C-alpha cells in the first residue's frame, strides 16, 4: 500500500509541476491561450494509446499464459484508458472548435481512430461488467482485446486511405508553430501524466487483486461429481 501512496505522491507533484509550466509558458502568437491546451491534449492521447497497447498486450498474454495478473493489467489499463481518451477527445474538440471553428475533423485518421478506441474500451468494460466470474471475465475480455489489436490498426489505415483519396488535409493543430517553451512544457506534462498513469495502474490493479481474492468462490469444475461413499457401493 505504501508503494502506491508514494507513487501517488510523486504523481501529484509531477502533475503540479506540469500544470505550473503549462500555465506560465508563453502562449503561441496565433492561437493565444488555447495553445496551453496542448499540455493536456497530447499527454492524454499519449496515455490513451499507451493504455490501449497495454490492454492489448495484457489480453494476448493472458490468452497465452493464463496468469491472472495479465488480465488485471488489461482491465485496469482499459478503465484508465477510457478516462484519458475521453479527456483527450474533449480537449481536442474544445481546441479545434476554438482555433479552427470545427470541433471534429473528418480528415484526421488519428482522431477517428481515437474515437473508435474509446468505444472499443467501453465495449470491453461493458462486457466485463456483464460477467461475474473472474475467470469467465478474463477469458471473454481477453478475446475481445485480441480482436481489437488487429482491428484498430485496420481502422486507422482505412480512415487514412479515406483521407488521402478525399484530399482532406488535417486541420488538427500540431505543435510546429509553437514557441519552444510551450513544447518543453508539453513534454514535462507527458512525463507527469505517464507517472500518474503508473500510479493509477498500481492502484487499480491492487483493487482488482483484493476484490478477486475476497470473492465468494464460484462453482469449481468437478463439483457435479460427488465422491462415492464407500459403504454405499454395493455392486462394483
Amino acid at each position, binding site marked *: 500500500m505504501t508503494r502506491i501512496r508514494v507513487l501517488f505522491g510523486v504523481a501529484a507533484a509531477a502533475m503540479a509541476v506540469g500544470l505550473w509550466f503549462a500555465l506560465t509558458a508563453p502562449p503561441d502568437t496565433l492561437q493565444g491561450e488555447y495553445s496551453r491546451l496542448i499540455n493536456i491534449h497530447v499527454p492524454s492521447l499519449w496515455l490513451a494509446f499507451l493504455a490501449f497497447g497495454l490492454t492489448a498486450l495484457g489480453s494476448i498474454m493472458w*490468452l497465452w499464459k493464463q496468469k491472472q495478473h495479465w488480465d488485471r493489467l488489461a482491465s485496469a489499463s482499459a478503465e484508465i484508458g477510457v478516462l484519458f481518451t475521453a479527456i483527450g477527445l474533449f480537449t481536442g474538440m474544445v481546441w479545434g472548435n476554438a482555433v479552427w471553428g470545427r470541433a471534429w475533423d473528418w480528415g484526421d485518421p488519428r482522431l*477517428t481512430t481515437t*474515437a*473508435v478506441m474509446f*468505444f*472499443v474500451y*467501453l*465495449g470491453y468494460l*461493458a*462486457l466485463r461488467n*456483464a*460477467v461475474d466470474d473472474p475467470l*469467465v471475465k478474463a*477469458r*471473454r475480455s*481477453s*478475446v*475481445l482485446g*485480441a*480482436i*481489437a489489436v*488487429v*482491428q*484498430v490498426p*485496420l*481502422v486507422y*489505415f*482505412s*480512415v487514412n*486511405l*479515406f483521407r488521402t*483519396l478525399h484530399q482532406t488535409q488535417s486541420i488538427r493543430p500540431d505543435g510546429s508553430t509553437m514557441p519552444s517553451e510551450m513544447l518543453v512544457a508539453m513534454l514535462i506534462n507527458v512525463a507527469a501524466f505517464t507517472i500518474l498513469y503508473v500510479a493509477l495502474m498500481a492502484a487499480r490493479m491492487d483493487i482488482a487483486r483484493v476484490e478477486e481474492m475476497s470473492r465468494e468462490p464460484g462453482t469449481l469444475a468437478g463439483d457435479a461429481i460427488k465422491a462415492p461413499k464407500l459403504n454405499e457401493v454395493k455392486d462394483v
Partner: protein
Amino acid sequence: MSFWTQTIEIARIDLRVERRLGDTLRIVLPFAVVALLVFPLALGIELAVISRIGPAVFWALGILFGMQVALRQSVTDSQERRDLHALAGVDPAARFVGRIISGGVLMMVFLLVLFLAMVLLYGPALPEGSWSTMLISSALFSVGLAELGTLAGEVTTGLRNRTALASLIVAPLALPLVIGASQSLEALSRGTGILTWVLLMAVTDLTLAVVGVGLARPLEEATR
C-alpha cells in the same frame, strides 16, 4: 467428419433454422426498408440531394441493420447445444467458419434486397459497373460483418443485454468495412479505381478470419 464437411453442415443447419424460425428476412429487412423511408423525410425533399446520398445511406443502414443479421437469435447457442457440439467433436474453428458462411449468405440476401429498395426509392445515378462493384463489395462486406458478428456473438454468449452489447462491440470495429464498401461505389462515380477499397475489405476479412480461427478454441473455453 472432416473440417470442411463439418463447416458446410453447420452452415446448412444454421440456414435451415433461420428459414424456419428466424426473423432476419422477415423482420430486420422490412425494418431496414422503413429506415430507408425515414432519411429523406428527415432531411427534406430536395430530390437532387436524395439521389446523391442514396448509396451512402444504404451502406450506413447496411452496417446498422446488418449487425442485427450477424447477431441473429438463431445463432444463440444454449449451453446444452455447445456441450453437445463439444462432445461430438465439432471443431470450434469449423463452427466459426460455418457461421461465417451462413451469416454471410443471409447478409448478402439482405443487402441485395435493401440495395434494390434504395435504388427504387432514391433513384441514384449509378455509373457503369455499379452492379458488379455492388456484388463484390457486398460479398466482402457480408463476410467481414458475419465474422465480426460471430466473434462478438460468441464473446457475449449467455450474457444479459447480449444483442446490445455485441452491437456496441461490432460497430466501431466494422469501420474499415463501411469505408471500403461505400468508397468503392463512390470511386466508380469519381472514375478512380475500386481496387484499393476492395483490397481494404479483403484484408480486413482475411485478418478477421485468421484471428477468428486462431481464437476459436480459447473462445470455446471462454463461453463455458
